[in-house]
């Protein structure tokens, strides 16, 4: 039964201490993201992602009861870290989700129909893959103009190819499986075959891939923000907070809290996804188990 399978996999998952740690972290971040308005109430509820100005002075301020993580770039780091969690989830889920959907569509068309459709789609995929992801995202963001939404668009535009290839490969494999032939022999329509036999058997690796990508997407977005291409200053985003610290780097007493808090949040967030993704991969992809 499916329940058994889930139970078995869940058991396997929970036997793996790193996976449990990952899940724990993830849940922790989800709670923070969900309760952000309670943990750090926004001054302007219409615009909660803008970190309210804590002081006019540009000088960083070390942690204090009022600003538990300190202040950098006139902003309360605590607020930024809390709401940055939401930003991170938003970036990861939207980008990974949409690019996975695009990838699935492209990959399925390519894999199932083969022939010239495959040839054309795969060449297009090749072309998009011929730009390093970071550079491509950077170029497109630059062209589209600054802003987190632009970064997300750029990462989607250049982020679907992996999934497309994965899906295509899997479909080519599944297509040869005898149960697909059997369905054909039963007279089942092509569209139903894709839907009922092919996609369900190829989707799990995609889920694993998506969960593994979450972290790296957040890193890329943060890197772009850090370089000054992503979210605008004052936006609740870890990369943006980190970019403030750049100019105070040489002074340990003024820099440490501005690097440590958002930095640690980010590392843990990425770590959480990677741990969970790793565990999922172990479960769904027995080839790489070990």
């Amino acid at each position, binding site marked *: 039964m499916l329940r058994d399978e889930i139970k078995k996999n869940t058991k396997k998952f929970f036997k793996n201490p790193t996976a449990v740690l990952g899940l724990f972290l993830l849940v922790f971040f989800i709670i923070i993201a969900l309760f952000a308005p309670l943990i750090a109430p926004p001054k302007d509820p219409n615009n909660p992602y803008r970190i309210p100005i804590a002081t006019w002075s540009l000088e960083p301020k070390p942690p204090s009861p009022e600003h538990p993580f300190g202040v950098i770039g006139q902003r309360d780091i605590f607020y930024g870290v809390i709401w940055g969690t939401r930003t991170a989830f938003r970036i990861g889920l939207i980008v990974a989700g949409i690019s996975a959907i695009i990838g699935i569509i492209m990959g399925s068309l390519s894999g199932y129909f083969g022939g010239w459709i495959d040839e054309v789609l795969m060449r297009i995929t090749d072309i998009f893959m011929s730009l390093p992801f970071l550079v491509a995202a950077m170029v497109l963001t630059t062209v589209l103009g600054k802003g987190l939404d632009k970064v997300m668009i750029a990462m989607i535009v250049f982020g679907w190819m992996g999934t497309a290839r994965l899906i295509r490969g899997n479909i080519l494999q599944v297509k040869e499986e*005898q*149960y697909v*032939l059997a369905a*054909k022999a*039963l*007279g089942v329509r092509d569209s139903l075959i894709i839907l*009922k036999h092919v996609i*369900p*058997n190829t989707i799990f690796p995609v889920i694993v891939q998506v969960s593994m990508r979450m972290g790296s997407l957040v890193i890329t977005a943060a890197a772009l923000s850090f370089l000054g291409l992503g979210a605008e200053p004052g936006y609740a985003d870890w990369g943006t907070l980190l970019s403030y610290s750049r100019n105070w780097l040489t002074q340990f007493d003024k820099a440490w809290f501005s690097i440590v808090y958002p930095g640690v949040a980010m590392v843990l967030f990425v770590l959480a996804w990677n741990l969970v993704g790793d565990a999922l991969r172990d479960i769904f992809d027995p080839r790489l188990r070990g």
Partner: protein
Amino acid sequence: MNEIILEVKNLKKYFPIRAGVFRRIVAWVKAVDDVSFNINRGETLGLVGESGCGKTTVGMTILRLYEPTAGQVLYGNKDISKLRGKELREMRRKMQIIFQDPYSSLNPRMRIKNIIAEGIITHDIAKGREAEHMVAELLKRVGLSPDQMNRFPHEFSGGQRQRIGIARALAVNPELIVCDEAVSALDVSIQAQILNLLEDLQKDFNLTYIFISHALNVVKHISDRVAVMYLGKIVEIADKKELFSNPLHPYTKALMSAIPIPDPELKRERILLKGDVPSPINPPSGCRFHPRCPIADPKICSREEPELREVKPDHFVSCHLV
């Protein structure tokens, strides 16, 4: 008993080999090369031969899971290779296939119930409750408990899965079933169970089987007539008793002698063949068996392709030297 249900005429199936810079077709795998035979209603035709000789391809092409390169497959009197759309689907209802691999032939993410009901629903034989009822009946018929229909394939053993595969095929009331190595992957004790089941079903539903196997002993057990294939061709076809008591083609003879018999005291003369089965990409000229044939006559065998001749009533052989 003598109504011809399926007639295969000069069937060919070539697979292209693409290579080179432009992925052009550089050669063809002549997997099935001019094969003709027919099957009567209710009989079992065994198809034997070594791996790669084209048995599966014959089966798949008959069902039009592969498009034939040339030739005809007449079912009743309809040419299957010309059917399209609805007609083709209707035809597929009459012919089913059971696969060798009990692992990859069932979708691991579907419940047994849905696997078996898929055909029933596709062909509007029944719906909902009724379909479920039918599934239960089928499961009982193949020796499984209907309670198990909500399970997933991986919860079953190989033999049980093969039964599920059989139930799936039976669900659409087929007339003809192609059993492609249906028992090869099973342990001996399980293999016997499935063979018995197939025999029972044949009787009950008046099924016609094309039984594909590389195991001569299994084919012998279950078939009425047997065709022996070598490199995409049928080299001998005859009634089972006739073929086993009186094999004419040197390949058939060698094949029979090569099979170890579980009786240490039975000492037979072995015909040991030289070399390996050649590749179907560039099959040998003339008689395809001649490079390995112990009695080959260099004059004709390597030059002329022998035809399938009826040397005795209902015993066809394709050999120059018979």
